[in-house]
């Protein structure tokens, strides 16, 4: 309690020190810690000074050589590893950003405290100060470990990828044997000017978009149809029906896709031998014909994708009040009108943003493309298979063709598409609106 009393006393404007200048404190803090000492926060000022001095001494050389390495990417083949130079360069940038943030933090802290002192506030004892900084620092300590990990595991690779797109890293020019060069936008230019790359890029891009749209929309359509059917009150045993319809969602995806890829096999797959051949006396080249492969993949994805949406939809349908439909019946509405005016808007309003995530999910649905037939069949005149979507093409370029820079350039384009899409989703999503207030 005595501290409280002291605080109250301190708040009296009698103590106001009009000569204490916030501007001066901030200017002094250009040498970190000095402004705090001017504010008579001796311990804090000394600590800040020591920390900054240590950081500068220890990191200066790393940052300087890192940034320099980022520009040259190494000079001696076999000795300098351009990849390491890239990584160290990115780390140097990250540390510089950190340094900048803490530096401005230090400036603002000195200024703010000086303002408070001018208005009559006096720093308390060491213990009280310590408790105060523990209070303000606590949330940062909580976020710290997760944030650090995020920087090294997610942000660092993303930056690395972005930089790779502007180098010439491929099978024939690979560190540590060779030194990488910065090539500017050459990879992107090649993507649209060299015939093989251009045809591949545009055919893969158009198939990716078609695939995303068709596979997702069909799943949603089927889910909606089944949800409306099973919402019928005349039906018995709906609980078990629902559980069975959700079953494909519960089985691990890679297992089902591998099973399907065996079922669809051209020669011995059960779909050809048991269904198509007896009925039509022919067999369909599911794996070796581009069009049939695409049809098979879309069908499999509908099988995999509808249950989740179905579960969402049937939850929403259960919640629609009967009053709506009774009122519609009174007005003599047809079934189609009831669906169009009541059911459909309810479903879309409740699940719209989640349905969008279904589209983004399929856009990057590597699993099904790769596990079905590794993006095949091969197509003449292009270096991607007939069912390859952008992300599986990137995989192929990385792991079979060793075209690392090209793969990175395409990843970057992929990222831009996702980011644009995410931006719209972002603006609509509830969490964004809630958080926008402060």
């Amino acid at each position, binding site marked *: 309690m005595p501290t409280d009393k002291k605080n109250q006393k301190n708040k009296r404007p009698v103590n106001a020190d009009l000569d204490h200048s916030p501007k001066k404190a901030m200017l002094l803090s250009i040498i970190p810690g000095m402004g705090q000492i001017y504010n008579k926060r001796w311990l804090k000022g000394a600590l800040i000074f020591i920390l900054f001095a240590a950081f500068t001494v220890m990191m200066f050389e790393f940052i300087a050589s890192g940034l320099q390495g980022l520009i040259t990417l190494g000079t001696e083949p076999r000795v300098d590893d351009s990849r390491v130079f890239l990584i160290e360069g990115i780390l140097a940038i990250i540390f510089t950003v950190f340094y900048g943030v803490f530096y401005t933090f230090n400036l603002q802290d000195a200024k703010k405290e000086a303002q408070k002192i001018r208005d009559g506030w006096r720093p308390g004892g060491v213990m009280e100060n310590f408790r105060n900084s523990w209070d303000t620092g*606590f949330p940062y300590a909580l976020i710290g470990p997760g944030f650090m990990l995020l920087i090294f595991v997610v942000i660092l690779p993303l930056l690395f990828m972005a930089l790779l797109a502007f180098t010439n890293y491929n099978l024939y020019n690979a560190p540590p044997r060779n030194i990488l060069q910065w090539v500017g936008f050459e990879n992107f230019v090649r993507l649209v000017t060299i015939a093989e790359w251009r045809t591949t890029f545009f055919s893969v891009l158009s198939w990716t978009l078609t695939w995303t749209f068709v596979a997702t929309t069909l799943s949603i359509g089927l889910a909606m149809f089944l949800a409306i059917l099973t919402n019928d009150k005349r039906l018995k045993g709906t609980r078990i029906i629902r559980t069975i319809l959700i079953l494909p969602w519960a089985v691990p995806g890679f297992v089902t896709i591998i099973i399907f890829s065996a079922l669809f096999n051209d020669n011995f797959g059960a779909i050809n031998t048991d269904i198509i051949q007896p009925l039509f006396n022919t067999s369909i080249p599911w794996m070796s014909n581009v069009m049939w492969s695409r049809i098979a993949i879309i069908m499999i994805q509908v099988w995999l994708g509808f249950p989740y949406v179905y579960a969402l939809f049937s939850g929403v349908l259960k919640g629609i009040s009967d009053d709506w439909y009774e009122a519609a019946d009174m007005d003599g509405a047809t079934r189609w009108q009831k669906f169009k005016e009541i059911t459909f808007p309810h479903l879309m309003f409740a699940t719209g943003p989640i349905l969008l995530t279904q589209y983004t999910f399929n856009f990057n649905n590597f699993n099904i493309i790769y596990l079905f037939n590794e993006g095949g069949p091969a197509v003449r005149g292009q270096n991607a298979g007939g069912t390859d979507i952008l992300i599986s093409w990137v995989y192929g370029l990385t792991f079979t063709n060793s075209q690392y820079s090209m793969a990175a350039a395409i990843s970057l384009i992929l990222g831009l598409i996702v980011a644009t899409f995410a931006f719209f989703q*972002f603006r609509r999503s509830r969490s964004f609106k809630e958080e926008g207030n402060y």
Partner: protein
Amino acid sequence: MSKIFERMQKRQFTRKQKSKLEVALIYLILAVMFLIIFYPLFWAFAISMNTTSNLYTASLSPENWSLDNYVWLFTNPRSDYLLWYRNTLFVSTIVTVVTTLLVSFTAYAFSRYRFRGRTYGLYAFLLLQMFPVLMAMVALYILLNTIGLLDNLWGLILIYIGGNIPMNAFLVKGYLDTLPKSLDESAKMDGAGHFRIFFQILLPLAKPILSVVALFNFMAPFMDFILPRIVLRSPENFTLALGLYNFVNAQFSNNFSRFAAGAVLIAIPIATVYLLLQKYLISGLAAGATKG
């Protein structure tokens, strides 16, 4: 009078008939759906019970069924199944513990404290959650290769944890936001410290969402195939999904029955958990993303 009554009765009768027909039609459609859903699953199960490893001669009738493939997985010295199981358990356990801990800390800070940079931090998390780690696979491959964590379970663990944080942190933050603030404020009045409020008040209340997050993180490595495929190289480091894929990848028709047996063994427990917890998983995940 009676004529009208008769006609009404007739109309009612036809309406009833029509309704019955409709219901029958719905059941028919559902029956077709069930067939489509069960056929591949049943087929895989039947193959797993076949002794012949050849898909040509495999039979779906239960006459010659045996558990040979299952026995082979567990007892044959050439089978790595148990090793893969152990690897997956190792990865899953560490990922679950570390992720749940980090995520609950992060979510607590974002939900209960107003600090400078909070809004930027939230935006960063929202943005990062949109980009799958997979998108940076070129970089991950080269990075891990350069620092020597390629073909190493720790490399995999690191990527899993880092990639999981943003989305899960949002899930937990959303849940903590719904808990009344008066709880921790009154505890603060009573002199409870930051950690005490977190561990003794919020954490017990957040148990439901944390268990979902933990469970989900635990199961993910059992189902994920791509990241292990990128990171791991040698069979003794494989996780289950990757190992099973290699059964069919190496010689497609030869080992399919073994793949099927191994797949049944992981699909049954996972499917059971998913079906039991569908309510939580579907509504919880609806906030962030989908299973993938």
